[in-house]
């Protein structure tokens, strides 16, 4: 059979898996957001839940809060990860063990990182104790309130700590193969180190970097656990509000949760569209070059 058809068939098992489950689940979430929830007797299609969600004055602030924490943690995390991976690749020794050590945070579930960050940064936490113990601070009262503020510090810290090791884990092999293939050539053509990094490595690794950033962003934007436990009481991150509505004993509130969830899904799709746009423009530029 044709090569391309064969290729498509290879993807089929994975596709069936994912489509059969996630899509169906998403479909049900959407219809629930429009008020169709027969399990508890809601059978009228309505947009009232969306209207109610969008008329909340705090919705905008929740959105911004989620966006801010997700964006900062992903961008800084990926940036850090890219630089670190590059350093590792260009180090004269192999550093395999060290690399694996740096990847450890990937295996730590978010909720545990929350416990660690809580113990590190509350005003009577580990960092404060070090400062007070060494005399740099007189008492814990001088330590700033970092958690539970609308700076989102705790949330960003947690996601950052997971983001850069994940980036290293994923990017290292990519950077290494780029390095092997293109470094000698670049050196021959007289490129200096930073030129090589900016004009050869980065562009080649861009798709992977972009994908990783988007995945990290989407996850931290839509996950509730971390902002629920470390975030500000107001504004609540979007997924936190959705979680509270979802777990409310008043089941009639579920459609509100679904409306917010659908909103977050829309954001995810927008992200994919952005990714498409950016990667196709990269393609275009490469073809022009």
């Amino acid at each position: 059979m044709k090569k391309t058809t064969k290729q498509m068939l290879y993807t089929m098992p994975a596709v069936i898996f994912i489509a059969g489950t996630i899509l169906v689940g998403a479909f049900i979430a959407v219809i629930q957001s429009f008020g169709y929830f027969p399990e508890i007797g809601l059978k009228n299609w309505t947009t009232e839940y969306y209207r109610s969600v969008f008329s909340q004055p705090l919705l905008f602030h929740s959105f911004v809060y989620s966006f801010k924490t997700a964006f900062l943690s992903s961008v800084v995390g990926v940036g850090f990860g890219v630089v670190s991976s590059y350093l590792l690749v260009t180090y004269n020794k192999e550093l395999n063990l060290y690399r694996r050590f740096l990847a450890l945070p990937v295996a730590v579930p978010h909720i545990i990182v929350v416990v660690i960050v809580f113990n590190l940064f509350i005003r009577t936490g580990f960092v404060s104790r070090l400062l007070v113990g060494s005399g740099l601070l007189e008492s814990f009262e001088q330590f700033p309130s970092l958690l539970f503020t609308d700076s989102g510090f705790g949330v960003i810290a947690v996601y950052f700590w997971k983001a850069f090791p994940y980036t290293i884990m994923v990017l290292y092999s990519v950077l290494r193969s780029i390095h092997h293939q293109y470094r000698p050539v670049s050196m021959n053509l007289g490129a200096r180190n930073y030129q090589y990094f900016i004009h050869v490595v980065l562009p080649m690794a861009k798709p992977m970097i972009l994908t990783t950033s988007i995945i990290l962003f989407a996850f931290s934007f839509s996950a509730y656990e971390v902002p629920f436990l470390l975030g500000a009481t107001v504004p609540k991150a979007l997924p936190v509000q959705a979680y509270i509505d979802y777990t409310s004993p008043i089941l009639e509130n579920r459609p509100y949760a679904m409306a917010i969830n659908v909103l977050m899904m829309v954001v995810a799709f927008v992200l994919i569209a952005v990714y498409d746009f950016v990667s196709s423009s990269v393609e275009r530029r490469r073809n022009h070059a």
Partner: protein
Amino acid sequence: MRRVLKLSCLSIMTLLVVIPLLLLVALSFGKGYEFPRVLPAELSFESYKYLLYEHPRMLSITWRSIQLSSAVATLSVLLGMLAGKGLSGDFKGKKLIERLMLLPLLIPIVSVAMGLHIVFIKLHLANKFVGVLLIQTVIALPYAVLIFTDLYKLIGEKWFEQGDLYGAVGHKRFMYVTFPLLSEGIISAFGICFIVSFSQYFVTVLIGGGRIKTFATEMFPFMNGGDFMISSSFSVVFLVINVMMLLVMEVIVRSFVRRGYHSIER
């Protein structure tokens, strides 16, 4: 100068990773951690004792979880390799499929939870081991697909063409060309998928209905931030298991690759 910069960057990274982990370990072994103590007051193995001996059937649950997550990771890697191979080429609808693959990573699971549960009940997969295995695979699969798609793209056709020239076709091609080239990817993909699967609490509880107990289902109820000893002990054991599994997998894969080289030499 550049050396110093490199070293300081690396040291910052190291500290960033080490300090939180050390704190975790310290909390798991320590009792009495009020302000202003920097380290816990006394050494205590209480939570490890509870976790390993007193929590009912913890050891068998742990063993089963390792089996479950290995199966999930294996299945994800296999399907991911296939899909990655397919996606490295070009065909109609490829973009759509690529987007589809990313969906589980971008959509929060809580949104689709109820719908998923209903689907699984209808398929008689709810409250069953197989059901949990399948749903965890759905969640882990995109990571594998991403890794292999990129890897296949990077490797390109040339190695396979070379192999064809030397008569490596079919399973021989898999063993002597594909597998060694992909081995790094297999290791990372297996690793990530194992971790993702092993960490799944919500879907395991939902689809497994509380009947399928995993390390995660026993661990997460303690993560409310109350008793730090028990939550950090669980976390340390969790980490150790994950790390060991990754090492084991790496050893297995590399030994296969080496054996492949040896047989070429013959």
